[in-house]
């Protein structure tokens, strides 16, 4: 009898903590941002593009500082090697070694695919912290794999954002999004992202595999695989300059 009462108390306490929706949606976003964002990070990754004409793998290394500065250098394949991209605020430059030219990507070109993947340049530009850019509301719960998730609906009135509406499945235990649906202002679904292989890195949870699917595009999506990620590194300032593109 005593054991039964003890069990009920423990279970109810446990379930209250895990499944209560007392936590606000914005607080969930803050915790997600705490996992995904850092002062700076250096990522070595590969993008596996499952296109209509077969599979291609593109390797790159990125240096990111806050939400405003980012520098990416493509390492492989040979055709893409040496191509570099620099993001400073809302501006994006691309350097191609074949032409030795640095060209600013702007306007409609930002919506173009990066290396034929399901990601656009606009996607790469968007590093804003979710809790600062969106208003969130919990609209339900769901189970993805073995993880119980909140379903959050994110909306914004900021015109500059590529996706005015998002739907996000947030792991209740790890505060990591496990799935995202990205919508246009009209409500049309544009992209779906599945985040997998969540690992504990430097005391935070981080998904090391993301599968992007542009639903308006044929093909089987693009896997973004994080081979190595280091947070809060000592990144020299010159990296985030146009001069470094030609180095």
């Amino acid at each position, binding site marked *: 009898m005593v054991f039964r009462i003890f069990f009920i108390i423990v279970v109810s306490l446990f379930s209250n903590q895990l499944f209560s929706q007392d936590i606000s949606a914005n607080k969930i976003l803050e915790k997600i941002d705490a996992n995904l964002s850092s002062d700076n990070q250096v990522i070595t990754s590969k993008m596996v593009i499952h296109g209509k*004409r077969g599979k291609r793998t593109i390797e790159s290394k990125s240096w990111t500082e806050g939400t405003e500065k980012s520098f990416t250098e493509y390492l492989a394949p040979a055709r893409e090697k040496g191509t570099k991209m620099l993001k400073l605020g809302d501006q994006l430059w*691309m350097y191609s070694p074949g032409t*030795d*030219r640095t*060209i*600013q990507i702007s306007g409609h070109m930002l919506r173009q695919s990066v*290396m034929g993947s399901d990601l656009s340049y606009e996607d790469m530009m968007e590093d804003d912290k979710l809790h600062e850019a969106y208003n969130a509301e919990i609209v339900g719960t769901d189970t993805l794999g073995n993880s119980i998730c909140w379903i959050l609906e994110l909306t914004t009135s900021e015109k500059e954002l590529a996706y005015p509406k998002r739907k996000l499945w947030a792991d209740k235990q790890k505060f990591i999004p496990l799935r995202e649906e990205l919508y246009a202002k009209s409500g049309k679904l544009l992209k779906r992202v599945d985040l997998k292989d969540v690992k504990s890195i430097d005391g935070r949870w981080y998904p090391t595999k993301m599968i992007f699917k542009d639903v308006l595009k044929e093909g089987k999506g693009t896997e973004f695989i994080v081979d190595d990620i280091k947070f809060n590194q000592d990144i020299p300032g010159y990296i985030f300059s146009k001069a470094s593109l030609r180095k």
Partner: protein
Amino acid sequence: MFKFLLKGILRDHHRSLFPVIIVVIGVSLTVLAFCWINGILGDMIDFNAKYSTGHVKIISRSYEENMDQMPVELALGNVNELLAKVQRENPDMEWVERIQFGGLIDAPDENGETRAQGPAVGLAIDLLSSDTKEVKRLNLKKSLVNGRVPEQNGEILISNDLAKKLKISPGQTVTLMTSTLYGSMAMQNYVVVGTIKFGITAMDKGAMIMDISDAKYVMDMQDDASEILGYFSNGIYNDKLATKVKTKFNSAYSDSTGEFAPVMLKLKDQNELASMLDYISRMVGIFISVFVLAMSIVLWNAGLLGGLRRYGEMGLRLAIGELKGRVYRSLIYESIIVGFIGSVIGTIIGLGVAYYLQEVGLDFSDLMQGATVLWPGVFRAKITVPAYYIGFIPGLISTVIGTMLSGIGIYKRQTAQLFKELET
């Protein structure tokens, strides 16, 4: 008889002048309209065939669905094998591979920074092979405004309008930004060696011409091309023959279900040309029919007026015993001579104006902005063999019909009354 009638027509101007003037006006307008429409249609078919559609074209099935967007990523594969096959099966035709693509031309300043950018519609053709016919087919040398035709890899031509807009002159290097077969962004430097003006509004806005090997390199295409075009050896589109070639080719691939399986289209299947050509043909038919009808009515009226004026003459001829049928026939013979004279003069005038419009043309390029079909900016007439006789059809038919209608009155005259009429 003929000599007699001709003398009468020439000596009695009142008898022939008005009908001849009517026939001259009608015939000259008919000849001019025929040459004008013939010129525009011919140019449209010719331009579309040479620059865009070929007489037949092979593309992938997916490409066909999105052809307006020129999707490089949906290009045909195994092009060399496909080319060999169609050349083997149709040895009388010439087959060429081409790539049409969209891109952005970026002109740098002295520091290598972007000075100006503009969208370009790229056309990659065989410019550099020793036996290429593409330079002649696209009339590139005559279309040059400045500079020369590319002679080696890395050289391109751009439209004169685009060059002016971006302030580029021959000898300058520009960067092309486009996408590869796999959807990646691609950048490549090229030297602009010449500027061109085709006189086709859709192309003069922002055309860029490069060698196909350059395009394949930048777009990461190995054995691929957007399209394979086929041309009949005489350079003239033949719809029946094109249908035959297309049917044979497509039946060989009818079981292929892949999105990159090849499919052949004929010229009329593309750019909405079939409906446009059929519509214009119908309009030409209606135009000529209405013209013949209107001229017949006018000449009928002229015949009636002439009949009234020659009432006495007819009466006298009948009174002295000439048969009604003979008088009626002589009027018809007379009308044939009038129609012939009017048709000859009308054809000469019509051909003269048509020749002027053939050489000079009328510039409608401002009205052609945004046209999807390759219309010539300058509309020109074209004098062909039928133009020398087409005017005789309405010219002779309308005069004869007009005379036949007005001459019926001869049969209503009563022989018994003729002398009484003559006395009065």
